[in-house]
């Protein structure tokens, strides 16, 4: 049921983006995050779409995988669309029926928001989760934030926590699926009935999932202990981060794309 969601999953491939230094990817991700929220004009949005396609090619991720990543957030995207349509009152009315009043500004705004969310998911997946293993993301964050160690911020520990959280996403999805199947076979119903009943139904999944997560956490802690984990001090790395010239080129290329997008958007506004 849930096992084909690829949100947050690593996609194994040998591509330019896969090989790029995770620090560069993290920084690029931040750049594109800003770009996605600055851009407003339709032409610039289309251009962003083209850049995203270039990124997809650079990551050698197949389209079905992209679809699996995006499809779980489509309902949310649709929800945002409708919410914006119904609540924004500024602009000229283009549709009016009973209490529903849709304006041209509301429409463009709603579409923009929905598209932004989809871009956000695709970019996050491409720059980080699909092309970078959780341990590498954690390495990158640890390295980028390492100056904070001076003021005693537990940078390593936070990075480790994050990478473990990411590592367990597929495991927990699998577990959720198992529990749901078991409850369904006892007569649970997650798809029909009133909204309240459905929410109640999920309790039968959430409680066992919580209990098992705690059990897993405890077992993992013991296993990490047994493997002599003692925090970041003195730890070495199998694949230490090394900045190569191709990383810099990829970084410069995508940053200039981003800059071009912003300039384009500002001039077209």
């Amino acid at each position: 049921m849930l096992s084909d969601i690829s949100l947050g999953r690593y996609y194994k491939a040998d591509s330019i983006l896969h090989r790029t230094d995770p620090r560069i990817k993290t920084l690029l991700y931040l750049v594109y995050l800003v770009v996605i929220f600055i851009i407003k004009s339709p032409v610039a949005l289309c251009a962003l779409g083209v850049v995203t396609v270039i990124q997809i090619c650079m990551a050698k991720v197949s389209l079905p995988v992209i679809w699996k990543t995006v499809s779980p957030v489509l309902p949310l995207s649709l929800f945002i669309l409708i919410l914006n349509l119904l609540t924004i009152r500024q602009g000229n009315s283009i549709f009016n029926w009973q209490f529903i009043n849709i304006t041209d500004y509301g429409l463009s705004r709603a579409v923009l928001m929905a598209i932004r969310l989809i871009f956000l998911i695709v970019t996050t997946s491409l720059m980080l989760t699909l092309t970078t293993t959780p341990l590498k993301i954690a390495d990158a964050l640890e390295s980028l934030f390492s100056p904070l160690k001076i003021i005693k911020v537990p940078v390593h520990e936070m990075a480790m926590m994050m990478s473990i959280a990411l590592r367990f996403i597929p495991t927990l999805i699998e577990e959720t699926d198992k529990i749901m199947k078991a409850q369904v076979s006892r007569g649970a119903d997650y798809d029909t009935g009133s909204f309240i009943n459905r929410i109640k139904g999920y309790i039968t999944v959430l409680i066992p999932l919580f209990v098992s997560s705690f059990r897993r956490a405890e077992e993992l802690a013991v296993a990490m202990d047994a493997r002599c984990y003692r925090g970041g001090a003195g730890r070495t790395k199998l694949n230490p981060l090394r900045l190569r010239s191709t990383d810099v080129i990829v970084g410069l290329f995508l940053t200039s794309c981003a800059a071009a997008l912003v300039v384009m958007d500002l001039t077209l506004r």
Partner: protein
Amino acid sequence: MEKISVQDVTFTYGSEGADVNAPEEPALEDLSLEIEKGSYTAILGANGSGKSTLAKLIDVIEVPDSGRVVVFGKDTSDDSVFWQIREKGACVFQNPDNQIVGTIVEEDVAFGPENLGIKLPELRERVDQALKDVGIYDLRLREASRLSGGQKQKLAIAGALAMRPEVLILDEATAMLDPRSRDEFLAVCEDMRLKKGLTLITITHDMSEAMRCGRIIVLSKGKKATEGTPAKIFADISLEQYGLRRPVSVRFAYEIAKLAGKTLTEEDLTGSSRLRERLYKILTAPDLKEPEGIFEERHAGAISDRRKIMSVKDLFSSYDGGATFALKNINLDVYEGEILGIVGESGCGKTTLISHMNSIMKPSSGEIEIYPEEGTTLYCSRKKDVRRIRETVGLVFQYPEYQLFEETVYKDICYGLSKMKLTAEEQKDRAVKAARSVGLEKDILRKNPFELSGGQKRRAAMAGVLAMRPKILVLDEPASGLDPAGREEMFSLIKSLRDGGTTIVIVSHNMDEAAAYCDRICCIRNGEVSEAETPEKLFCDSEKTGKFGIDQPKITKFSGLLKEELKKVMPQADFGTPVFEPEEEARSVYRAVLEARRKDVK
């Protein structure tokens, strides 16, 4: 000096700042034992006997409340050598998913040595070496969560070996593996022990695994019950009182010795070929005793002529919309009142098949028909039948205790019933009866399910399904994780349910249990299923078992070799079909030998 020594150790969980009003029972009490360097030791005991705690004390994950644990001359309570000891020990635990830290195989193997601060050329060399040692070097760039159970567990040993430990502790590490992966896994560990002089400590419920060790330590309720060579331990019948059972070959041998009025010595138990030799001598001795009643016919259960209750027809199943099939053209009939076994390696499609039986998954093509009573047919692909199908077919997944969620056992059992629109009295009546049928006392119904012991939790979860009064009960590995006594109880429970009229379908990878308890067995491999047959027929058909990658039950293997040897001197002997209960098989062999000798005299 070169040994692990546990001296008068007492240990209680949560003793630091714990609730004073509810002092926990000590997990270990006044325990003393020694383990030689380079030895191969098994630690046995019932669930909750303190085995895992002992492992944690040796690897300094816990420190004893009183007493001392000294590992190769270093005291674990001495903070200055704490890391030195922990670096020497490595553990592999039961659930592979919960010990993998890295996403990619080689990242995970590197986790341990990275913690030790091993620098780069050596780090890479260690990781590669460890991966090669366990034979998963080719998988080094794969995603760890996508490996099979056996591969994940090998990854866990690689992660341990990369730390270059002196002590390797396997904490029920084989419990979740199928027999083949289990053998492979142990072979790797034993090989490493010989090559690298590892001290190997294995905690297990599997008695034939314990037979491979040099020494066995039995724990019971946190105390040492007995210790010695496997021969000494298994020669002692009192093993049963600690919730353990003797290996099937030993049970078989003792029954033969008993029939012949002979005794077995420790010496005889020091290896299966020696044991067979001894039995051969007993059975070919000139004055073989003829015990009373041995020729009384065994009551054979009548099969066939039963009503069909479920029929799987040309079933195809796919997780990816038809690109690959998890199940291919399955045809299978289930008859009312039988125990049908479905056996096969992990990942062969067993669980997928049973998900279809309950209509949780929809077939790509084909159909499953269910006949709850004469003249009624329910179709799994028909939406309006789904509710009745789920009431007719009860499904208990592996580790059902992980699905408990209510505040009390009673409420949890009632969950399925509340969905069936029954009256409150009816619900109560059914819940209480279901609890009784799985052997749960009435006062347990008021308890919180998370307070129960592992075995009780499983029973509670099963009661939740049984309360719906299914005509067919489908069980996925019902005994996994239980100790030998618990397994036996589980299967006698299943038999009593069958005798009460419920049709049972069991998924298992334990051939001994499948053979002993199932009326018919079908094998699955790579999504293809064999015709269901009686275990006698199936396990004599070596072509078929080979095709489906099924091992013979251990008892059949052992007694088969003995029969072969006996055939050489008494070719007229007719051993008939094998029996899978060790004592019964012994009587059957004994009977055949006596009959052969009578013919000889004539």
